[in-house]
Structure formats: structure tokens, C-alpha cells
């Protein structure tokens, strides 16, 4: 009983921490996005508030909070208000399942007259056996947010935007799901941590009884599933409703899509939700195809060895520093992909809606199926024809 | 010459003729077709003579040339080959068929000269001969049956030769169907004999036939032979199946001569003679045959007295004469039956051809009331017809006398005979003399009643030559079977050739212990000849001297005369009692059983379904929630049941 409460407490804290982290990351991302877009478009961007305009977001936040909270006349109150709140939840919960670093192993130690531990503190919200399925499931719930918001606003533009967006999400979910079947088959697990660990070290695999080692390449999923990567990455754009797939808020057609009627703090929540999706996408790409929190070229054991020799002496210290190193490695990759998202947004034009649907159903889905079959065949050949 | 080759030529020659004429039925002209056909039969005739010559050279007890070409039906015990046999009995037949056939073919060339379908006609005629040969040569009942049906078929075709006339076509159909009735019985007879004796071969059957005459009516021999005899009544036009033959006169006259006088109709007699031992073993059957034969002889003759159509008269005469043959067969005098068959073939063919000549001359007129005094126009026809007349009324020494007299004698004296049969025979003979004389008188003698626009003329040589040949045969044909009473007074005591020829192969009732005086024979002979002559004289008197008398007599007889002239209303009886009710019954079957009962039953089933459906469909309210509730109720019921259990 006590153990249960302890676990629940720890997990609760982790959830809150991750939630806060994500919320805090949003202002930075917004800043990056605005500065980045300015950079891309050859202009300055926000640069007045604070150094490099870093305080701009703070100011924005104050502005958001002070805006009038109003309800459109035809809006459905319950939905109109719950939708923004609900926007946060799937993103955050899903992100919790992504491993961020090697687990922190705490040896037993005495504090305040009691023995604590030993305890293994996983660097992730919670470790779920069927991680991918969980994330896909939770993130698919995001469609409700959009629908609730769109319909709840009592506005035709909102509704149309919502319908478009949700249809888009459902459509691309297929391609998304199928594109990672190859990954799942490759690693033989749904568990994200296992996947990450499977990518450690230099590239090596066995093919028809021969062990192949390529020392100059990391053992990343990217090299095994290039097509899967492309498809997955493209699909995540659609899933997170970002350009070039942000039809839901196509300004020229629909004003601002499902959040036309939203403003102020509620708008901010949608922002956060959108960025949360982006972060999930970046995290998943990192995890599936770029070795997650692994440092390229080094296995966690090697790093632990390195730390033990050079940086720390106590087991707890070693574990902590190793975890931090991996955490950093993760965030570097993660940031890179976030930047990529932003970069794409300001580089590519928007699709037309039918092009979007054609791409999803007629291009990506068949290719994803092809990738699945190809992977299956290759795996079969690789293992069964020794 | 090789027997099987001869036999093959004998059989196939007419068939080839049929094929050629049949294949070129639109191209072959009358002369080509006719001479082709005649030649074909003539070749057969020559083969027959060669075969018979060989046969004569054999010892009397084993005169038999058997040829088997191939197996026809072989199943289990049933082994029937396409086997053909020439023995003394069939020898007579093939000679008659091919001989008389040749003459009739020749006659036809002239007779049918102007007909359009002449090649077809000759083709049919050849086919008929072919079938007839199969009939008489076949070594088993089944082979015979092939010919039996085949000749029926040809007869059908030839009777209906002028098919555009509905009545003629109907006559053909009538002939075939009536024959079929007989054939059905024939089949049954075969089955009975086969079941009992395990073979259908004539010689085997004759050998296996019980030596002790069968007393029971239900014995195999009796039943089998009885059935075969019913078959024979069909083919040979005996009571009760004779009705087709008078109608069959619808065909061309030479056909009547060949098929309906000389050959086909005698097939029944031939069959009985063939199976003589079997028939002997069945005295009950023989009794029936004799009675039927005698009755037919009398009845047909009586009808013949009232007919006005020249061919109809001859047709009834044929029926009557066939009755004599059956009478002979029925009293066990098979040889005599064959004898009469032969002589009858000569004189009846002669008379038919003569009548054909007359009809030809009269431009297709057949009513003797419109003839008369044709003697002066057609002398040859008259003379030959005259000899035929003498032969048929049994005037010595013409052919008919010997055979008919022998029949009457046997009818009286045979162990199977009876004085009543004799009496019937004499009565028949008297009537025959009457109607034949009447025919002669009305046609050739007396005053001419020929319409003015008709100019009778003598027929061409092509037609008269056969008449002459047949006339000669009618004169001398009887001398083959001179009985010993007559022969004893004749110089040189001529032997009874026919008896010697047929005797060894026939099993006739033994005459041991039966002695009849020669005096009696002479007496009986005298009675019959005398009565016939008297009758002929009376007829001559009536129809030549005082043509009014017959009318008066006819009037005074009233209903009886009308009944007889309407042929005892037998056709009407058959139609009224059998055919029309059958058709009405069939219609009822169709309209009522098929449509009303069977179909209605199925409809009833369908209606039941429909009714059930319309009751149940009220449950289908269209309210889906109600359906769901029914499902729920069903679930409740099932679950309750599960729990209660």
C-alpha cells in the first residue's frame, strides 16, 4: 500500500514536471519561431522586449491573460470552454511515454533517520509496455478537441475548420500508424525504451546468417527504415496540423479555422496544445529513427564507464551524470527536429485540401503498406535464409 | 457362289436401289428410277433362285442355308445376330417376294409414269422389299420383327404417298398405328417365349417347343403364340385389327398389289408357319386362329359383296383370303397355308394390277358403278383379270382351286378341324364367288356406264406384261400342290411338290388314326366348287342380265344391307368406343390432372407459403426498435431457459 502511494506520488510529480516543462518550452518555441521566421523572411522579428526579444513572450502572456473572456452568442458553453483545456491533455500524457534519458538508479541511502531506496527513477513519465500504441491512441484523441472547439463555437468557419482538421487527423493516422509498423517489426517491441536501447552502438545486423558491422554509422532506425522515416515525419506534420498541412486554419478560406472565435488565454492553450503535438512528433522521430537519448557512437555502458572514470565516484553520482548526459543528447536532437518543424513551416506553401487527402490516401498509405511488406519480407529473408 | 455373298446381295440390292433413288429423289426421272428399282429387285430374284437352287440340291432333312453377318444385340442370355436363313419355308417367300416384286416394279414404271415423286416411290418400294426380305429371312423373332416393323413403315410411307390428301395420310397413319397394336402384342409374345425358352431363334424355339400339346391357357407356348398371333392379326389384317387394310387402298395400286395383297399382309401367316412347332404345341391358340381366320373370311367376304370401289372390293377379298390362310394355319395345315399364300400372291397381285390397269385407263376412277363393258377397250387386262377371277373363286384347274380346296378339306379333317370351320369356309367361298363375279360383271361386262369424257384404253406393254406373267402363274401356280385325290386320277400322278418340299420342315398334327375316305374328299370338293359356281352364276345373272334385282334385294334386306355396306360399323365402333374416348380422356388428363391437380397442388403449396407470409408479415411493423425488443424478449426467453434448466 505504501509502495503504491509512493509510486503514484512519484508518477504524479513526473507528470506535473513534464507538463510544466512543456508549457515552459512553448514561449521559447514561439520566440524561436518568430525569430526564425523573421530570419527566413529576411526581417528582424521581435527584438524589443528584453535581450533579443526574449521577453516578448512574457509580455504576450500578460496580454493574453488580460484579454476579455467572451462567449459567442451561438456557442455551446460547455464545449466552448472545455475544448482549450482538453487540448492540453492528450499532448502532455502522450509525451510522458517518451523516454528522455537513461534511468537514474538511486542506491539505498539514509536520510532523516530512515533508509530510502534503492530506487530506479525512470527518465520518462511512465514506462508503458505498449508505448507506441499508447501514444498513437492518446494523440488520436486530439481530434475531439478540434471538433469540440469547432462545433462549440457556433460558427461555420470554425465548424468547417474543425471538420477538415479532424478528417485530416483521422486520415493521416492510418499512414502514421502503418509507417511505424516497419519500425515495430524491426525492433520487435512496442516499448520505446527497448527501441532506444536497440539502437545503441555502431550499425550492426545479421543478414542471412552473416553478421554485418558498419562502424562508421550509428545503429539508428533511420538507416533501416528510411522510407518509414519520411512517411512518419510527413504524417506527423499533418497530425499536428502544421504547415504545409494546416488546412484547418487556412486563413484565406476559413479565417482561423476552429479557433476563430477563441482569443486570450483560451487561444494560448490551443497554442500550447499545438506545440505539444509538435514536441511529441519531434520526440517520436528522435526515438524511432535517431537513437533517442543515445549519444551517437557510444553505448550507455561506455558513457557510464567514462563517467565513472573521469567525473564521479559514487554510484548515485555516476548514474546521475550519465542520465544528464543522455538527457542533453536527447534534447539536442529534439531541438533540432523542433527547428526543422519551424523551418518547414516557413518554407513550404500550404496544400489544397484535395491534394492533402490524395497525398494521405493515395500516396502515403500505399507507400506505407509497401514499406511494411518490404520490411516483413526483408526480415523474413534475413532471418530464415541462413 | 458363296452363300453369304449371295445373301448379302439378295438383301442389299433393294437397299442400294433405295439409297440411290432416295438420294436422287428429285433428279431421277421415271424411267431411270423405275428401271433401277426393277433391276435391283431382279438381281434379288436371281439371287433367290440361285439360293433356292442350292437348297434343292441339299438333302431334304437339312435344307437350310444360314448366314450370320454380325452380332446385333448381345446381352446376358439374349444373343441376337443379324442372321438370315433360307430354308424351304422362306425359299417360297423370297421367290414370291422378289418374283412378284419384280413384276410389280415393272408395272409401276408404267403406272407411275406421270407422277412427280416417282423416284421417291421406287425408293420406298425398294425399301419395302428390303424389309420384307429381312422379315422372311431373319432367323429369329427379333430379326423378323425388324422386317415386321420395317414393312409397316414402308407401308405407311406408301399408303401416304400422296400425302397432300389428308385422308390418304390418315390412312397411312391408321395402318401404322393399327399395326403397332399388333406389334406390341408381338413384342409381348417374344418376351414370353424368351423368358420361357431363353432364345428367340426360330429353329431353337421349334426344337424346344413342348412335344406334348399344352392344354393350359396360361402356358408359355399358348400365351406366347397367342400374343404373336395378335401381332399377326395386325399385320395380316384379321379380326379385330383388319380395319386398316381397306383404307390402305389409298396408296398407289401397285403398292396395294405388292404390299397389301402379295407379300406384307401374308407375313402373319408366314410367321405362324415359321413357328409351326410352337403353335402346334399350343392347340388353344390354334383354335383361336382357326376361328378368327374363318370369321374373318366370312365377314370380309360379306363386306366385299357390298362395296363399289374396285380396290376396296379387292381389299376385302384379300382380308377374306388371308382368313383362309389363317384358317389353314389354325387347323395345323401349315403347308397348305403356305400354298394358299403363294397362289393368293399370284392371283391377287394379278387382280390388283389389273384393277390398277383399269384405274389407269379410267383416269383414276375407282367406282365400279362408273365402269362396265371395259372388255372391249382393254382386252389383255380383261383376259388376265378373268383368269384371276377363275382362280379366286376356286374353279379347277386354276391356282385358287387347289389351295382353297385343300384348306377346306383340312378344316374338315384335321384333328384340329371342325365341320363348322369347313362350313364357314364354304360360305366364304360362295360369297367370294359372288362378289368377284359382281366385280367382273360390273367392270368388264354388261353395259358401259363410263362417263363420256373418259376414254378408256389398253395399258402399255410395260403394264400388260406383268399381267400376262401373273395370269399364267394364276393358272399353273396351283399345280405345285395337287392333292393326292386329284393326282390319283390324273395321268402320270403328279406329285404334291409343295408337300414334299415343306413337309420335312413342318411339324403338323399327325393324321395317324384319322382316315377319311377319298369319296368324302370328292364329295366335299364337289359341294364347294358347285356352290361357288352357282353363286358366280347368280351374280352374273344379277349384274349382267337384270341389274335391277340386286337393288331390290338390297332394299328388301334393308338394315342388314346397310350394316354390311357400312362395314359392320367397325371403324365407327373403334372410333366411338376406343379412339375418341381415349382422346377425350387424354384431354381430361391434361386439363384436369396436369393443370388442375398437379399444378394446383404446387400452387396450393405456394399459396400456403404466401398466406403464412402475409400473416407473419404483420409482425414487420417497420419499427426497428420493436424488432430490437423482440430480440430482447428472445434473449430473455433463452436465458431464462438456461437458468431454469
Amino acid at each position: 500500500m505504501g509502495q503504491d502511494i509512493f509510486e503514484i506520488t512519484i508518477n504524479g510529480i513526473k507528470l506535473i514536471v513534464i507538463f510544466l516543462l512543456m508549457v515552459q518550452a512553448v514561449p521559447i518555441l514561439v520566440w524561436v519561431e518568430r525569430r526564425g521566421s523573421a530570419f527566413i523572411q529576411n526581417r528582424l522579428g521581435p527584438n524589443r522586449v528584453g535581450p533579443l526579444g526574449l521577453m516578448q513572450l512574457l509580455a504576450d502572456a500578460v496580454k493574453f491573460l488580460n484579454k476579455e473572456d467572451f462567449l459567442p452568442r451561438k456557442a455551446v458553453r460547455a464545449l466552448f470552454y472545455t475544448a482549450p483545456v482538453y487540448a492540453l491533455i492528450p499532448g502532455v500524457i502522450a509525451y510522458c511515454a517518451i523516454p528522455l534519458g537513461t534511468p537514474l538508479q538511486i542506491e539505498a541511502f539514509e536520510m532523516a533517520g530512515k533508509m530510502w531506496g534503492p530506487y530506479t527513477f525512470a527518465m520518462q513519465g511512465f514506462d508503458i509496455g505498449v508505448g507506441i500504441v499508447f501514444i498513437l491512441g492518446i494523440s488520436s484523441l486530439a481530434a475531439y478537441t478540434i471538433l469540440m472547439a469547432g462545433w462549440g463555437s457556433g460558427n461555420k468557419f470554425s465548424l468547417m475548420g474543425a471538420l477538415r482538421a479532424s478528417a485530416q487527423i483521422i486520415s493521416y493516422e492510418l499512414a502514421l500508424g502503418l509507417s511505424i509498423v516497419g519500425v515495430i517489426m524491426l525492433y520487435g517491441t512496442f516499448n520505446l525504451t527497448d527501441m532506444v536501447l536497440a539502437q545503441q552502438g555502431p550499425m550492426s545486423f545479421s543478414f542471412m546468417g552473416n553478421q554485418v558491422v558498419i562502424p562508421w554509422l550509428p545503429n539508428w532506425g533511420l538507416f533501416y527504415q528510411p522510407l518509414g522515416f519520411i512517411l512518419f515525419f510527413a504524417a506527423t506534420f499533418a497530425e499536428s496540423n502544421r504547415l504545409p498541412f494546416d488546412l484547418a486554419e487556412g486563413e484565406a478560406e476559413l479565417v482561423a479555422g476552429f479557433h476563430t472565435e477563441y482569443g486570450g488565454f483560451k487561444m494560448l492553450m490551443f497554442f500550447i496544445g499545438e506545440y505539444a503535438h509538435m514536441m511529441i512528433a519531434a520526440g517520436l522521430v528522435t526515438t524511432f529513427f535517431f537513437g533517442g537519448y543515445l549519444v551517437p557512437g557510444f553505448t550507455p555502458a561506455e558513457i557510464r564507464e567514462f563517467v565513472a572514470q573521469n567525473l564521479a565516484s559514487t554510484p548515485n553520482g555516476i548514474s546521475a551524470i550519465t542520465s544528464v548526459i543522455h538527457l542533453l543528447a536527447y534534447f539536442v536532437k529534439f531541438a533540432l527536429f523542433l527547428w526543422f518543424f519551424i523551418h518547414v513551416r516557413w518554407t513550404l506553401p500550404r496544400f489544397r485540401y484535395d491534394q492533402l487527402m490524395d497525398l494521405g490516401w493515395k500516396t502515403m498509405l500505399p507507400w506505407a503498406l509497401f514499406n511494411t511488406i518490404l520490411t516483413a519480407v526483408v526480415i523474413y529473408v534475413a532471418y530464415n535464409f541462413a | 457362289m458363296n452363300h453369304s455373298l449371295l445373301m448379302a446381295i439378295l438383301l442389299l440390292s433393294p437397299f442400294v436401289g433405295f439409297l440411290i433413288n432416295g438420294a436422287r429423289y428429285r433428279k431421277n426421272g421415271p424411267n431411270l428410277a423405275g428401271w433401277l428399282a426393277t433391276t435391283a429387285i431382279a438381281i434379288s430374284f436371281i439371287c433367290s433362285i440361285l439360293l433356292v437352287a442350292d437348297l434343292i440340291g441339299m438333302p431334304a432333312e437339312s435344307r437350310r442355308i444360314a448366314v450370320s453377318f454380325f452380332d446385333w444385340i448381345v446381352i446376358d442370355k439374349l444373343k441376337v445376330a443379324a442372321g438370315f436363313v433360307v430354308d424351304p419355308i422362306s425359299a417360297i417367300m423370297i421367290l414370291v417376294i422378289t418374283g412378284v416384286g419384280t413384276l410389280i416394279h415393272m408395272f409401276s414404271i408404267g403406272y407411275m409414269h406421270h407422277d412427280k415423286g416417282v423416284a421417291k416411290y421406287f425408293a420406298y418400294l425398294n425399301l419395302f422389299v428390303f424389309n420384307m426380305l429381312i422379315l422372311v429371312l431373319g432367323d429369329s423373332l427379333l430379326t423378323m420383327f425388324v422386317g415386321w416393323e420395317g414393312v409397316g413403315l414402308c407401308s405407311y410411307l406408301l399408303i401416304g404417298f400422296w400425302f397432300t390428301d389428308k385422308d390418304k395420310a390418315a390412312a397411312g397413319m391408321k395402318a401404322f398405328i393399327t399395326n403397332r397394336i399388333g406389334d406390341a402384342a408381338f413384342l409381348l409374345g417374344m418376351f414370353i417365349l424368351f423368358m420361357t425358352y431363353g432364345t428367340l431363334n426360330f429353329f431353337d424355339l421349334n426344337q424346344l417347343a413342348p412335344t406334348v400339346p399344352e392344354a393350359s391357357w396360361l402356358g408359355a407356348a399358348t400365351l406366347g403364340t397367342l400374343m404373336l398371333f395378335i401381332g399377326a392379326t395386325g399385320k395380316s389384317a384379321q379380326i379385330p385389327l383388319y380395319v386398316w387394310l381397306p383404307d390402305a387402298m389409298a396408296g398407289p395400286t401397285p403398292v396395294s398389289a405388292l404390299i397389301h395383297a402379295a407379300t406384307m399382309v401374308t407375313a402373319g401367316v408366314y410367321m405362324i408357319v415359321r413357328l409351326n412347332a410352337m403353335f402346334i404345341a399350343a392347340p388353344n391358340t390354334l383354335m383361336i386362329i382357326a376361328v378368327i381366320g374363318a370369321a374373318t373370311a366370312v365377314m370380309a367376304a360379306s363386306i366385299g359383296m357390298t362395296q363399289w370401289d374396285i380396290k376396296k372390293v379387292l381389299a376385302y377379298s384379300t382380308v377374306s383370303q388371308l382368313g383362309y390362310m389363317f384358317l389353314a394355319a389354325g387347323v395345323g395345315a401349315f403347308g397348305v397355308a403356305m400354298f394358299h399364300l403363294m397362289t393368293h400372291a399370284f392371283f391377287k397381285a394379278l387382280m390388283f394390277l389389273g384393277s390398277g390397269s383399269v384405274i389407269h385407263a379410267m383416269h383414276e376412277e375407282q367406282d365400279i358403278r362408273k365402269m362396265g363393258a371395259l372388255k372391249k377397250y382393254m382386252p389383255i387386262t380383261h383376259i388376265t383379270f378373268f383368269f384371276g377371277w377363275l382362280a379366286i373363286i376356286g374353279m379347277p384347274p386354276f391356282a385358287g382351286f387347289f389351295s382353297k380346296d385343300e384348306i377346306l378339306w383340312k378344316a374338315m379333317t384335321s384333328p384340329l378341324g371342325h365341320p363348322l370351320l369347313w362350313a364357314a369356309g364354304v360360305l366364304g367361298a360362295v360369297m367370294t364367288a359372288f362378289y368377284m363375279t359382281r366385280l367382273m360383271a360390273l367392270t368388264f361386262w354388261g353395259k358401259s356406264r363410263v362417263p363420256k369424257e373418259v376414254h378408256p384404253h389398253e395399258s402399255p406393254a410395260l403394264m400388260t406384261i406383268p399381267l400376262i406373267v401373273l395370269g399364267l402363274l394364276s393358272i399353273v401356280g396351283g399345280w405345285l400342290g395337287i392333292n393326292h385325290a386329284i393326282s390319283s386320277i390324273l395321268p402320270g400322278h403328279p406329285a404334291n411338290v409343295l408337300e414334299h418340299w415343306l413337309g420335312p420342315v413342318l411339324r403338323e398334327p399327325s393324321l395317324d388314326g384319322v382316315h377319311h375316305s377319298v369319296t368324302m374328299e370328292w364329295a366335299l370338293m364337289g359341294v364347294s366348287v358347285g356352290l361357288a359356281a352357282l353363286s358366280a352364276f347368280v351374280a352374273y345373272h344379277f349384274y349382267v342380265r337384270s341389274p335391277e334385282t340386286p337393288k331390290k334385294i338390297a332394299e328388301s334386306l334393308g338394315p342388314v344391307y346397310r350394316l354390311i355396306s357400312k362395314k359392320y360399323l367397325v371403324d365407327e365402333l373403334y372410333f366411338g368406343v376406343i379412339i375418341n374416348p381415349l382422346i377425350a380422356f387424354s384431354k381430361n388428363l391434361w386439363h384436369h390432372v396436369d393443370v388442375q391437380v398437379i399444378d394446383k397442388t404446387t400452387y396450393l403449396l405456394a399459396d400456403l407459403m404466401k398466406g403464412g407470409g402475409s400473416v407473419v408479415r404483420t409482425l414487420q411493423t417497420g419499427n426497428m426498435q420493436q424488432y430490437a425488443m423482440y430480440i430482447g424478449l428472445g434473449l430473455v426467453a433463452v436465458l431464462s431457459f438456461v437458468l431454469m434448466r
Partner: protein
Amino acid sequence: MPSTDVINQIGLSHYLVLSAALFTMGFLGVLMRRNVLVMMMCIELMLNAVNLTFIAFSKFSGRIDGQIMVFFVMTIAAAEAAVGLAIIVSIFKRYREVNIRFFEHLKG
């Protein structure tokens, strides 16, 4: 019966009762609601209730086949929903009506 702590000892019966409750709710909805879409949703609810039973039995009898069955049920439910919705949309486009009582053209 062994002493049972109904609150703390969560056993098969709990799941079964829960599933029965959901099932009857769904059934109630099918019977009572008039909106075709809601009826379909209620059917989904019933299916889910059954799924729960399957999973529970699977767990408590230690056989995985129950889960397979659920898998199948889900697939079929998805198919059913797709076709059903397509039909309803077609009907709605024509008649502008979703009331089940409106669709009684097939009554006998």
C-alpha cells in the same frame, strides 16, 4: 462462500456486473432513443460491454483467445460504423431526417 471483501477484492464478477450494466444501458438506448445515430452509438456501447466481458474472461481463465475475439469485434464494429454512417449520411442528405420512426418503409 468464502468471506469476500467486495470493495477491495476485485474479481471477475465485478467486471461482469459492470459489463452487464453497460450492456443493458446500451440496449435501453437502442430501444428508447429515436435518433439513428444515437442508436448506433448505443450498439457500440453494447459491443464494448461485451468486449469487457471477453477481456475479463480472458484474464481470469488465462486464455488469450478472449482478446482475439475483442480484436475481431472491434474490427467489425469499425466496419459497421463506417457502413452505417455512410448509409445514414446518404439518407440524411436526401431526407434530412434521422428519426428512426421516419424509416418504416420496409414494413410488411
